[in-house]
């Protein structure tokens, strides 16, 4: 499982404050803590409150690149912000994200190609959030065909079926899990899959439990990657165990430790 750490996001008060005060130490510690907990890449978002996202995202990227060469996942809905961020990236990158809208695809896919970046495609469009599996697959097919037509390698594309909070869209959960499997059938080689995990527990009381239960179910459905909080040890333990049960790693009594030694 490719783990993308979610904690460097201006939505969180500590990061918002660090951004405001340009406090590098807080950002760098947050980056290193996530990596030590098992993050393979770091999501970076200056959050919706940022008044100058172009400056803020670049500052975050430079600050993080001082302490790690792990891939960075540039998280913004604005292609211009992504483009500015890519310019200062020395580390490998993942663009988070494009939607299935043509203007977005036209702006983002060339950037991903130009910078040799991986790309997250979320199955959403101006028409709104899909309500069932078929709508998700239709949007996924739009993204895939656009990438194919424009020469972007599908194995570098990560499709996100959009997870909704379980207390709002309970009826959709089964569909979302099934979609993870079906995305793979849309192309050969198939696209990869990714989830923004924490959304599933938004507004609930037992967030960590819901996150880890959903994650193990998604892993069983073939999920390749997730944006999550790697410092949630129980979440990571559940992930490692799910992969063990799927025979992705060899069992030993200290398999949790063995995984972390990798």
């Amino acid at each position, binding site marked *: 499982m490719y783990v993308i750490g979610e904690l460097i996001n201006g939505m969180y008060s500590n990061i918002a404050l660090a951004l405001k005060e340009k406090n590098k130490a807080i950002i760098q510690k947050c980056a290193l803590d996530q990596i030590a907990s098992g993050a393979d890449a770091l999501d970076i978002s200056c959050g919706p409150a940022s008044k100058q996202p172009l400056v803020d995202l670049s500052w975050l990227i430079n600050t993080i690149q001082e302490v790690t060469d792990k891939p960075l996942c540039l998280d913004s809905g604005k292609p211009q912000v992504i483009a500015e961020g890519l310019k200062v990236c020395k580390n490998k990158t993942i663009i988070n994200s494009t939607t299935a809208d043509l203007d977005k695809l036209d702006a983002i896919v060339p950037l991903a190609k130009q910078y040799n970046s991986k790309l997250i495609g979320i199955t959403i469009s101006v028409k709104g959030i899909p309500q069932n599996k078929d709508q998700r697959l239709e949007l996924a097919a739009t993204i895939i065909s656009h990438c194919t037509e424009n020469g972007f390698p599908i194995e570098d594309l990560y499709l996100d079926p959009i997870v909704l909070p379980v207390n709002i869209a309970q009826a959709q959960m089964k569909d979302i899990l099934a979609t993870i499997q079906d995305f793979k059938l849309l192309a050969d080689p198939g696209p990869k899959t990714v989830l923004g995990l924490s959304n599933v527990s938004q507004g609930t009381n037992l967030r960590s439990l819901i996150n880890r239960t959903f994650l193990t179910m998604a892993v069983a459905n073939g999920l390749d990657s997730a944006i999550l909080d790697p410092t949630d040890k129980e979440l990571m333990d559940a992930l490692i165990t799910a992969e063990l049960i799927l025979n992705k*790693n*060899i069992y030993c009594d200290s398999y949790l*430790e*063995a995984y972390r030694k990798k």
Partner: protein
Amino acid sequence: MDPQLVVDKWPGTIFTVAIGAKSNEGGSRNEEIKIGGQNCLPLMFKEGVIAHPPQIAFEILDIPGVDLSEELVKVYGAALKDPLSWAQKCVQEFGAKLISVKMQGSHPDFGNRSPLESAKFIELLLKKVNAPLIITGSGDDANDSLVIPACSEAAKGERCLIGSAVQDSYKTLVASVLADGHSLIAESPIDINIAKQLNILISDMGLGLERIVINPTIGALGYGLEYAYSIMERARIAALAGDKTLACPFICFVGQEAWKTKEAKVNPEQGIIWETITATSLIQAGADLLVMQHPRAVSKVSQFMEQLFKK
């Protein structure tokens, strides 16, 4: 269209373990022998780099040859009566590049030799031959836990390969190997889960994975070879896929197993074939270090490897 070769690339690399320290590194060996270092499956030359071909060690005991098959008694002759001459014969007459000595004399059934005497033997052996050494216990856990640390200390700085650490008893040995600058054999009973666990336990004590050689425990042809083969293959695939806790080279004690078989005992020629076939099969499973007994079997396996590794 010509058929296309499907070439796999692996993210992982097997650790390189060095055996033997030369004078410039504080030892007195004539050579440093390296095993491991490959980033592909055995003999898949097109898929990666096989940094070091498998190596063969000659096995001797620290006491006059006991419990050996008639054929081995015949081939080593009078030298068997004196382990130092036996070692020398392996090097001078049969071209051994590595000597593996089993401290059989410390076993209660074979004289119960003290740790001090055993250590003295190692000192003499180090003077007599200058090939890198592998030192293993007699199999009596209680005595081994005293004798092997004494031998380790006697060979301090010579970068030997010392064994065997097992899941129930590894701490003393790890501490000795760490203190004396050697590498360690980690032995598991044809069990990949225990092999992995043991490596973690050992590395938790501070001995790096790059100083561990896995003894997966093997059976000879017809005596469980295929079990060992599949364990080694599975461990190697996991290691190449990125599992560092299994990315250690393998040592296989081929001679002991082959010459125990009834096929070897009834017919000496058959014994040589048995040892040869067991060894060549294990090379294909991923063996990096073969501990063998019969010089003619060694010679056949060496020829086999020369053919395989011909550029």
